[in-house]
């Protein structure tokens, strides 16, 4: 357990070495980055083993290790203000570690081929290692401050990676947009952390705060406020409804980056935070969980609908990510941590798979727009097959991992929430089926729409296909971890839920009715999609023309971007220029220079007293004498 700190340390060391000696290493040091993340991946297993064999009876004692970073004792109060660097491992951490390290390894191996020949090849791997290190730090940290530090560092790496090709104006703008939006979210997170520290037990340690809250330490409304503010941070990072605008634009970055950051790891940090802090959400006012639920739902619906209209394949997958994240938050909204973590675990694999598949398509055809692709299955059989697995997993077809995770979410949603929520989720299943099949059909099947792209199409080399296959395997097999038998076989105390909820036993039962309804709806959506978009997709075109206003609304992403831009331009920048003008004219010219001019002109007037004529001078003397003597006589005598 106590070598858990090595996991983030190795990539961090790799980052430091690459930063300084990167350009001089052979192959710009990409092997060093991969070796580092590989080592971290391997290290996860001994930590897991430690965690498992510590299991005394049903509960697992979570390991913790901390060093002092800042500490000084507070005068008068007698306590010490302490900030420490500490690591805390428990099942949720293990799930996150597994997903992050594995997907990062796959992506970095994939990137060797994808990024070959890029002018800043070394810099790419340097930032990748920094990203891995900060993500692992975020996941492992035992106190809120270190979590916040990892959180910001991850945001900064996403800024660097989205803006990797900063020569492109759009990439630079996208990077800036991403970082600012997440920063706005983080304002809430920081205030939340400080509020928790303020009324709490004078420490940032998460476990102590949770126990303090569970003993009723915080008063209710105060805790709700703090928790909702922290949720605001999660909103920013995981691209939920109000702050989701940056994720679609984040596709400007290289595709492996999108695969790693905008599918499997960074965007789920918000989910991890809420999962970690869920006891606080439960102690606080129920409104908190309802807010999480509502936000999740709106994101699900918005992203699903927008997916229908987008033509760029990476953007469609990005919307599917938003869709999945929405689902995870719905699960958390109904305080189903196991379901959320399961979906996160599984989603990591098949979403990375979809992105990498899209990547290999782009890598081969240099083309991202669906309307110019089509019929690539013949040219790229492996990618097509693996992409099919990913699409079906996303839709949630029976044997694949997506189905089991989505079902868990549906089950908990049905039990915990009212019927409307359940119906909305079911409708989202249909739409997901529609737009995912549209994606697959438009890119891989039927006649190619543009010959040039089709000719260029070729299967990627081993470095591309091997990661795809591994992820494809995990996407198919991953779901079965839910069953207890499979869990025991692998040495776990039981199924996935059992593992996540260490102390309370959570048996996995298979709810036949939800399974059937979800499969029917999902399958129906897929078939409908096939029918609509086969051959020349005339049927889809006719429908689009009939509902023209709706499709334009969707393709413009509900004009949310434009509204935000309007708000920023008018209010924020406007206010800025008004204040700048105010500062220059009123405070500076009026106030400061004004008083100086006042002094200058009194002097100017006084100057003319000096007329140069002697009698006036004599008059001044006489006046002086008179005033002096009269005043003297009047006051003294």
């Amino acid at each position, binding site marked *: 357990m106590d070598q858990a700190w090595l996991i983030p340390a190795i990539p961090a060391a790799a980052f430091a070495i690459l930063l300084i000696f990167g350009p001089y290493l052979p192959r710009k040091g990409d092997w060093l980055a991969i070796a580092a993340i590989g080592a971290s991946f391997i290290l996860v297993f001994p930590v897991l083993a430690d965690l498992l064999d510590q299991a005394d009876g049903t509960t697992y004692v979570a390991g913790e290790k901390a060093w002092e970073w800042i500490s000084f004792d507070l005068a008068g109060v007698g306590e010490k203000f302490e900030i420490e660097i500490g690591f805390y491992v428990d099942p949720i951490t293990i799930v996150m570690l597994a997903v992050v390290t594995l997907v990062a390894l796959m992506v970095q191996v994939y990137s060797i081929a994808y990024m070959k020949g890029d002018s800043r090849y070394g810099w790419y791997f340097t930032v990748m290692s920094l990203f891995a290190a900060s993500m692992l730090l975020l996941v492992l940290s035992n106190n809120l401050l270190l979590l916040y530090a990892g959180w910001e560092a991850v945001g900064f790496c996403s800024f660097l990676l989205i803006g990797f090709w900063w020569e492109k104006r759009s990439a630079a703008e996208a990077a800036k947009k991403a970082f600012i939006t997440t920063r706005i979210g983080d304002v809430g997170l920081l205030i939340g952390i400080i509020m928790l520290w303020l009324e709490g037990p004078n420490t940032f340690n998460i476990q102590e705060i949770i126990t303090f809250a569970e003993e009723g330490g915080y008063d209710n409304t105060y805790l709700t406020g703090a928790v909702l503010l922290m949720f605001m941070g999660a909103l920013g990072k995981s691209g939920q409804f109000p702050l989701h605008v940056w994720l679609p634009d984040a596709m400007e970055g290289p595709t492996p980056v999108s695969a790693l950051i905008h599918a499997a790891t960074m965007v789920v940090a918000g989910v991890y935070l809420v999962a970690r802090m869920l006891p606080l959400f439960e102690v606080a006012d129920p409104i908190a969980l309802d807010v999480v639920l509502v936000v999740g739902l709106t994101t699900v619906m918005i992203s699903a609908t927008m997916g229908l209209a987008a033509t760029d394949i990476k953007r469609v997958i990005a919307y599917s990510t938003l869709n999945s994240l929405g689902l995870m938050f719905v699960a958390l909204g109904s305080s189903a941590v196991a379901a959320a973590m399961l979906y996160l675990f599984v989603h990591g694999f098949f979403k990375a798979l979809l992105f990498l598949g899209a990547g290999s398509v782009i890598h081969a055809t240099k083309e991202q727009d669906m309307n110019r692709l089509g019929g690539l299955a013949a040219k790229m059989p492996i990618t097509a097959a693996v992409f099919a697995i990913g699409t079906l997993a996303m839709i949630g077809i029976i044997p694949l991992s997506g189905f089991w995770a989505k079902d868990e979410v549906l089950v908990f949603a049905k039990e915990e929430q009212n019927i409307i929520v359940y119906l909305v989720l079911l409708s989202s299943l249909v739409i997901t089926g529609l737009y995912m099949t549209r994606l697959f059909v438009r890119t891989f099947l039927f006649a190619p729409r543009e010959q040039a792209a089709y000719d260029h199409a070729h299967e990627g080399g081993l470095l591309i296909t091997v990661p795809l296959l591994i992820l494809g395997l995990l996407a198919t097999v991953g779901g079965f971890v839910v069953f207890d038998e499979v869990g025991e076989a692998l040495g776990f105390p039981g199924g996935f839920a059992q593992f996540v909820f260490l102390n309370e036993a959570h048996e996995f039962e298979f709810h036949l009715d939800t399974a059937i309804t979800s499969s029917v709806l999902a399958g129906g959506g897929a078939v409908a999609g096939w029918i609509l978009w086969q051959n020349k997709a005339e049927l889809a075109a006719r429908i689009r023309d009939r509902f023209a206003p709706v499709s334009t609304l969707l393709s413009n992403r509900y004009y949310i971007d434009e509204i935000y831009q309007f708000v920023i331009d008018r209010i924020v920048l406007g206010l800025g220029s008004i204040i700048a003008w105010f500062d220059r004219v009123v405070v500076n010219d009026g106030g400061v220079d004004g008083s100086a001019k006042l002094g200058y002109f009194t*002097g100017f007037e006084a100057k003319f007293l000096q007329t140069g004529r002697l009698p006036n001078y004599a008059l001044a*003397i006489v006046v002086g004498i008179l005033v002096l*003597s009269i005043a003297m006589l009047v006051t003294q005598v």
Partner: protein
Amino acid sequence: MSTSLEWGLLAPEFLLAGWAAFIILIDLFWGGLGKERLGWLAAIGVVAAGGLSLIWVNDAKQFGELADINDYTTLFRVLFTGIGATICILSARYVRDRLLNPGEYYALILLAIVGANGMAAAHELLTAYISLELLSFSLYALTAYAKFDLRSNEGGLKYMLLGAFSSAIFLYGIGLIYGTTGSTQYAVIGEVLSGDTSDIEWGMYLGLALMIGGLGFKVAAVPFHMYTPDAYEGAPIPITALISALAKAAGFAFFLKLFAVAFLPLIDDWRYFIAGLSVATMALGNLVAIQQRNVKRLLAYSSIGQVGYLLLGIAALSQDAASALVLHMIGYVVTNLAAFTCVILYYNWTGKEEIEEYKGLAERAPYVALCLTIALFSLAGMPLFAGFATKFILFQAAADQDLLWLAAVAAFFSFVSLYYYLILIREMYLGEPEEKTRFQTPWLEYTALTVLIAGVFLIGLYPKPVFNVVEDATATIFVSEELESGEDLVGVP
């Protein structure tokens, strides 16, 4: 009235007067000596007189009832001879190039120093008045000395007539004080005024008011300052320096001694009037200075501003305030002479005195520019230089006598004064001179300048030795204060 007078005590004055006559004769009979060397000769005489006055260091003698020769007088004798020597050296080249009959010029300077010494030494109103008139007359003559220069003529006329007018007023004041207290001795006046003065109030206060007016003129306090800019601008530059240094220093020496010994009992009556004068002087002096375009007029108004600070010392009259005042006066005199040396040098080279014409002085004479900058910063009260330490001590002494508001006003106007000094500094360093040639360096003036700047740095960085000397000097005029407790006045100053 002991009639036996120790004439030896006035040796420095006799030497000066004799030397003045000697200078005139030399100029008359031995033309070959040349105007420049005549200046040096005069300077030697003055220095000799200064050296002579050191005989009476920490000695307390009395020249009849008229004057007393003690540390106070010695300090001021040395100060005045110092000023005189510097002025003689500085005016050597100026007189050679621009003035006729230098003999009388230097003689008048020497006589002015005699007058100044008399004012500091006087212990009695009549002697003080006569020395005051001697000083003033020589300055009137020197101001109008450039016969064919219209401005010098006009300046001299204004200075003369207004001077006569105000000395008449001053005399009327003395008359009233003499009438009411029955004597012209400071100590006796002090004693009478500390007694009950119910019946003689009218005459006394009117006399006091008139004397403050007259003295106000001599030190150029505000309502009476009108002549200063014209006199400064009109007079030949070395004489402007002389007026700004000698007239002010002698005026305050007399002002301080008179008020410390004679009028101290009435301090609560006249304190707030002097404070009022001080505020008016600082305000007008600094504000109008901002508008000036001619360097001489600028320095005139700056010296009016400085007088405001010195009046502050008088308003807060106590032993500490008096020594702080004298220290600030020494700092001011040294800094002012340094500034005027630079102005004289530039005038000798180029004949210019407008601020715009100081463009690019830093290119052409970097050392002179640096010294002028140091002097100006010291006048503004910036640290490292004399102005900061002396102003700090003076204002703190005033604050100690619970005149904090006055110290605050003074601090404010000291800041206002920084503006017009910066204007001059800006011209020197930022402007571009017409031609880039370096001026040839007159070694004598440079050494005088270096000595003065060293003085500015000394008082700025470590004023303790100078302050000790000043402390002993002011102790003598405040002896009567300690004695008040019970013993009657022995009449020993």
